[in-house]
């Protein structure tokens, strides 16, 4: 006896979701157990049914399927995720992959292309439109270089300055930083100035943006946790 594979489908338009259901059931032979229109519902349904596959159009009612995918991964879901885009967009594809998507296909691939992508995703492949592969690799390499350069700047910060960066990101002003670190406001101001200089940014806001873009604060937390554990 074979177990039928299950899928959840999400699209902001009900008719589109129904069309996806029919296409997946006829082309791939999966049992579409639920449909959703919003990113939050898609996450809820995927976590409730734990399907083998989730097929989502990128643009959902209350947000992007990319963020839904990220939430699923953060919550430990191993459902394979295939995103269906209105048009092939390399930047969007990179974001989707970073969010943990297993495949990305544009609508112009047609029903047969969608079916083929769904089958490959369920077999464990990462599906990327062939013509986008070069673009995606180039963007990943560029992103990796930027992250490496950012990390190198971050590593110039002393432990205390890294702490100051975290406090800046939490919205602390000089006075609160001084109180938190038990130093004078003048010293706190000097720390902030050093952080800005070493990160090569011109404002506290830019420093926060820089730290978030390159996930530097996550590194800080990880390094801190590792140090506490040792």
């Amino acid at each position, binding site marked *: 006896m074979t177990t039928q594979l299950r899928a959840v489908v999400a699209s902001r338009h009900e008719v589109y979701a129904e069309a996806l259901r029919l296409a997946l059931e006829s082309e791939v032979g999966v049992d579409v157990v639920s449909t959703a229109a919003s990113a939050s519902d898609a996450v809820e349904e995927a976590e409730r049914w734990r399907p083998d596959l989730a097929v989502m159009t990128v643009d959902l009612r209350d947000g992007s399927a990319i963020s839904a995918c990220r939430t699923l991964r953060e919550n430990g879901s191993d459902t394979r995720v295939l995103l269906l885009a209105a048009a092939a967009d390399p930047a969007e594809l990179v974001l989707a992959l970073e969010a943990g998507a297993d495949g990305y296909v544009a609508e112009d691939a047609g029903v047969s292309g969608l079916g083929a992508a769904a089958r490959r995703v369920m077999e464990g492949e990462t599906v990327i439109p062939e013509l986008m592969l*070069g673009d995606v*690799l180039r963007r*990943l*390499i560029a992103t*990796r270089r930027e992250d490496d350069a950012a990390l190198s700047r971050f590593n110039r910060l002393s432990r205390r300055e890294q702490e100051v960066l975290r406090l800046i990101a939490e919205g602390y002003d000089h006075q609160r930083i001084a109180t938190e670190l038990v130093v004078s406001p003048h010293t706190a101001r000097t720390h902030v100035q050093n952080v800005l200089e070493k990160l090569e940014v011109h404002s506290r806001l830019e420093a926060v943006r820089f730290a978030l873009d390159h996930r530097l604060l996550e590194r800080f937390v990880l390094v801190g946790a590792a140090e506490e554990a040792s």
Partner: protein
Amino acid sequence: MTTRFAQLPKQRADIHLVAHGPTPTLQDGHGHELLVLNATAAALWSLCDGDTAPGEMVDAVCEICNVDHASAKADIERTLDVLTDAGLLEWVHRG
């Protein structure tokens, strides 16, 4: 290959990737077809800009495909070997 990997692959200036139709091909300035590529080889060709290291290509491929590092490295080295042996790539120092 180990020695050459200290250098960076660069497309020969007179070679062009023609991606019309299902099969990408490399052609010279006269439109002569020199090599038929698959999609992955075409993608790698596009990265041969004299600035991207093969190691960066390997890392990026590993990041998006479910392949182990050794397999990706071997596949990429093989592809670059084919392109080099066909006289389509030159190897340059960074800078």
